């Protein structure tokens, strides 16, 4: 199946979930990543249950912040 991950369409095994996608993409500091699936945020507790399908779009986002 084809997923668009971080703006790039790529082929992935059918039926993978977000947890597996994070592994395959070697996402940095996965404990801090926020995932948007088809423009909707998925709670980190829902990664296992989020089974991906052909045509899905995924973005990986990190909280950004800081101070002087």
């Amino acid at each position: 199946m084809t997923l668009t991950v971080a703006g790039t369409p790529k082929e992935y095994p059918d039926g993978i979930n977000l947890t597996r996608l994070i592994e395959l993409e070697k996402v940095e500091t996965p404990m801090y990543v926020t995932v948007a699936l088809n423009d909707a945020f998925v709670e980190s507790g829902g990664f296992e249950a989020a089974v991906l399908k052909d045509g899905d779009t995924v973005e990986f986002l990190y909280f950004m912040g800081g101070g002087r």
Partner: protein
Amino acid sequence: MSIRLKASDYRRIVEHARSGLPNETCGLLAGRREGDVKHVEKVYPLDNPDACPEHFSIPPGAQLEAIRDMRALGLSPLGNFHSHPSTPARPSDEDINLAYDASASYCILSLAGKEPALKCFRIERASRATAEEPVAIITY
């Protein structure tokens, strides 16, 4: 890596920072990577929900809206910027603690001196290592 930034985008960052005083301001950088160079094609000045002279944050929701626009334009997220109203353009302890993306450029505009000073860094949060990325401001 080095960064090429259009003068008009640099001015936008400075104007955003000045208009937000006394608070820190922030935003995102988008563009394309070519070898070791990041070409900034668009800046996204964003609200700082902290509304504070000492902190900024860019929640994922605000990022996602900008990223939709980047994807539509064929651009990639390159990093972020924020202002230091009264301190130098160097990553603070808090900046390093919250730098979760080692591939991003973390740019800081200082308004502490007579003239604004922009510096960009890559930050390895785990090792707390920072590496300055030279910025070239381009006039077309």
